[in-house]
């Protein structure tokens, strides 16, 4: 009953003209209102504040005094700052480059080899094993590994001892020459599952006839990997590289739990550096400058990544058409 009435009302409305065409736009925009307001309060306002504070001298109490570019000039001469960014590059290698390469090979092997010859169940179980560390809170992963890598009675040293390689034992997280590499190793373990899962999903849209044709032509596994798998999942590769690089630049929890940036700053990274500058040294202006530089780098990287991804997807669509 109501339905007919409503319908009639609409027809009447149409006769009057303006209503049906004007109403939709305004009321759809209303749905966006809570989201936009929440964003302004929780993301935009703090972000603007942080940027402003980076141009001031502020200890977190009283009002900030404007100091222009002083914080940034100081950063340029701060060897701790440069070291933290250098360590970031190591993290990009450990969390983006290495997992992407290993993930590609593993995904191709699981998809094109295990999946085909031993069934997709076997492939799924193996994939799950590689993915498991991704579900773990990074703080917990840190606890697990700091104990495995402990100098006395740590599992790794105990294992080396047991197989007769006792001379290889190390203070994995306490030796300034090794600590960064140990943290890198842990991050590879944490990160591998992500590219693997993305690549395996990507491979599902590759036409299986490509592989069959190549196999008939006598192409070996590596040739098929190089000439079919790699070009076909280029868009996924860009996504994975971008996301993982951003994650690498932001890495905090693992460093906090594993090494606290030590020993002697050997594993300090920008996010941990800004955290200690904010909350331990309470040099808020300086900490804000560090995090602003980090933000600029991350946003630039995101834009490049998005651009490469769109271009790869366009190229692929062009090739398909």
């Amino acid at each position, binding site marked *: 009953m109501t339905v007919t009435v409503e319908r009639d009302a609409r027809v009447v409305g149409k006769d009057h003209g303006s209503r049906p065409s004007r109403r939709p736009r305004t009321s*759809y925009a209303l749905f966006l209102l809570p989201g936009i307001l929440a964003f302004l309060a929780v993301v935009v306002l703090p972000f603007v504040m942080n940027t402003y504070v980076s141009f001031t001298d502020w200890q977190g109490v009283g009002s900030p005094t404007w100091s222009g570019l002083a914080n940034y000039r100081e950063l340029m001469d701060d060897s701790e700052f440069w070291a933290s960014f250098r360590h970031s590059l190591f993290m990009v290698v450990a969390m983006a480059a290495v997992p992407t390469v290993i993930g590609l090979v593993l995904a191709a092997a699981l998809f094109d*080899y295990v999946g085909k010859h031993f069934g997709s169940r076997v492939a799924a179980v193996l994939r799950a094993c590689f993915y*498991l560390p991704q579900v773990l809170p990074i703080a917990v992963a840190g606890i697990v590994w700091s104990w495995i890598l402990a100098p006395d009675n740590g*599992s790794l040293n105990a294992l080396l001892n047991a197989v007769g390689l006792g001379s290889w034992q190390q203070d994995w997280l306490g030796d300034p020459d090794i600590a960064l590499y140990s943290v890198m190793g842990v991050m590879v373990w944490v990160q591998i599952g992500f590219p693997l899962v993305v690549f395996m999903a990507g491979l599902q849209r590759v036409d299986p006839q490509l592989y069959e044709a190549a196999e008939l032509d006598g192409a070996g596994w590596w040739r098929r990997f190089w000439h079919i798998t790699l070009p076909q999942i280029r868009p996924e590769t860009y996504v994975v590289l971008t996301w993982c690089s951003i994650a690498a630049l932001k890495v905090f929890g693992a460093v906090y739990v594993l090494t606290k940036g030590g020993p002697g700053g050997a594993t300090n990274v920008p996010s941990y550096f800004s955290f200690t500058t904010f909350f331990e040294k309470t040099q808020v202006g300086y900490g804000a400058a560090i995090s602003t530089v980090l933000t600029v780098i991350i946003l630039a990287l995101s834009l490049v990544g998005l651009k490469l991804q769109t271009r790869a997807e366009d190229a692929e669509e062009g090739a398909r058409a």
Partner: protein
Amino acid sequence: MTAVRRYPVLVALCLAALFMIVPFLIVAVNAIKSPAEYSQNGPLSLPDGLYLDGLKDFWERVDYSQKLVNSVLISGSVALLATVLSVLNAYAIGVGRIKGRTWVLAFFVLANMLPQEALVYPVYYLSKEVGLYDTRLSVIIVFTVIQAAFGTYLLSSVLGQFPREIIEAARIDGADKWQVLWRIVVPVSRPTLGVLLVFFFIWTWNEFLLPLVMLISNDNQTVSVALGVLQGQRLMDATMTNAAALLGVLPAIVFFLVFQRTLTRGIAVGAVK
């Protein structure tokens, strides 16, 4: 390809997979050893019997039940609220096709990419100003917004492809926009919303930096923060560490077993669009 050549690859992959899960096994084995047994036989021996006192002591010492309640409460609220917020945003952008939607979407995407380091001090300062510091609510609010940024991005493209005939038909039958959203768009998009819920829940559960800064009192801390802080202070002996690690790992494994399909499908959805 002969079977003889296939098996070495499978064996190599299985060994690699084993390497990935060995840390979990080693933690589980050592968490049920007594301290005496641990110091006598080291970390690699199999346990003689089941010793649960270490786990029990640790549970009581950190008040683990309270930490679990906090984590479930915070992650659950964030998952629900962020999904609702994402749906509202994405409805306006994807279905409503509001003016300037590309810019609105770019705004959300960039907000999602911002490092939390660039928000953390002002969020800490502002929450003190408004009396929300050291409350679970503060963390819920912040993560609802941050997760909704990703949700908006993902859902907008999904809803952009929502069959328009269904919406048109409902409109002709007299449903207003609010009814169309809750009676048609939401039920039809349920699989994607499920993926978002699971991801938001687990991501929030695993968050470390902001909860570390915002939740200082013992009664408000999450599982991740409580364990991370203890470990960072190096207050634990080996048996304690293993108990902590096992209790931290268990919820993750439960999520993993329950949500494995959703997780892997979700990652693929999120990555490709």
